[in-house]
């Protein structure tokens, strides 16, 4: 498990979690993101997760697969996941390599992602332990 400064910030917005990826992640960072996110879903009783990859100009197959895994794990823990901010080049490279997001919904940007979640799992205030 890698340590050091997080390359992903996970922000809580009521019952939604917003994971904003700042830079390209290697495999262990990806796993770290997965574990943190899934753990926080439980801690904050979140019902929606947004993963913002707008800062990424590459997304490898492991990254795409892990995002799909996160979405599935989040679903099992009761949260709907949406991936936002895929850049045009990344999008086309992904389909050319035959890797989609395996059924995970996508949206143009954070705003769209919030609207998408709001229409399906309304945001509700959360009372629980304060974030770290």
């Amino acid at each position: 498990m890698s340590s050091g400064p997080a390359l992903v910030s996970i922000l809580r917005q009521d019952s939604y979690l917003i994971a904003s990826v700042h830079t390209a992640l290697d495999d262990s960072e990806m796993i770290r993101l997965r574990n943190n996110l899934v753990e926080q879903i439980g801690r904050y009783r979140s019902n929606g997760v947004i993963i913002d990859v707008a800062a990424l100009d590459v997304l490898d197959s492991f990254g795409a697969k892990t995002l799909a895994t996160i979405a599935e794990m989040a679903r099992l823990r009761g949260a709907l996941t949406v991936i936002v901010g895929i850049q045009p080049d990344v999008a086309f490279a992904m389909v050319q390599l035959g890797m989609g997001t395996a059924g995970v919904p996508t949206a143009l940007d954070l705003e769209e992602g919030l609207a998408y979640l709001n229409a399906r799992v309304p945001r509700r205030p959360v009372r629980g332990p304060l974030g770290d």
Partner: protein
Amino acid sequence: MTEYQPGPAADPAGRRGEQDTEPSADAAWAASLHPAPAAGVPDPNSAANPNSAANPNSTAGPDGFAAAQPPAATGQPPAPSDSEQNANAELLTQLTAHLQQHRAKLRDQWAARIRDAHLLEAMTAQEMATETSSVYDNYVEVLETGSVEALQHYARDLSERIIPRGVETHEVVGIVLLLRDVLARSLFEKYQGNFALLNRVLDAYEPAANRIANTVAVSFVEERERVIRQQQDSIRELSTPVLPVRERLLILPIIGVLDSERARQVTEQLLSGIRTHRAKVVVIDITGAPDVDATVANHLVQTVDASRLMGASVIITGLSPTIAQTLVTIGVDLSKMNTIGDLQGGLEEAERLLGYNVTRQDGVNET
């Protein structure tokens, strides 16, 4: 091929001033082989410089020797000895002096030949007179200096002016060959008494004249190609417009043959269009595409998938029966694609997806 590149102005007079710069001969020869970007960009009028026309003797003496080297060097492989070079140089000096003396007469002869051959009929008599003068002067200057740089630039400049007027390659090559012929005839006339001398004059004249013809033709063709490339680029750009029709709704009409290069461009423009216009729905209308092959069809599917990754859904409209059959035959998986018969239906569906409700108001424009 080479691109037009501005460079320091070539100054024939200045070049004569520093004739001991041997490399100029090599450079000129190299330039004639590969019209390199190093080609200078002289003032197109420099060739018509009254000095060069009025002072036929200006190249005499040691200056003339070095200046005449390049044409001599263009001869066949066995390098001429110093004395031969010297003789050749003197001949060329004599020759250009002769051509400059009879400038008016020879130019008129040439212009008459052009008229007889029905070349350059797109140009007015006035333009013809101007152009023939400058081509003539350029021609003589190349014979004199052996440097084709000025001519190259002039030819490019001339091509730029005459191509839009529909002048063909054969005309341009034709007039240069006519000038070559006119000058050669005049040399025949002058030296007909002395066959050996005539022979040597032609030895000096021919390679230089061939090189000139070559330079002009190449410059003209290059200019044409440049124009064609430019037009291709603009056609490509025009041919894939991404049009916003409602807020968050884009239309992408595809007209004309979709090859893989264009398909790639369509994808690129569409994906960046989705981001700029924050589109949620895109209608791709391929009524105007006569045919698609497997590669393009797969590319289209990828475009749809990529758009979905960016949060936009795509509706494809206007699949012709032929294309539909092709797609089914080659087994492209279109199950995830939302296709609708025509553009109108596609727009209606898009409006429904976006929550628009368009109704027609009663009493408007009823006849």
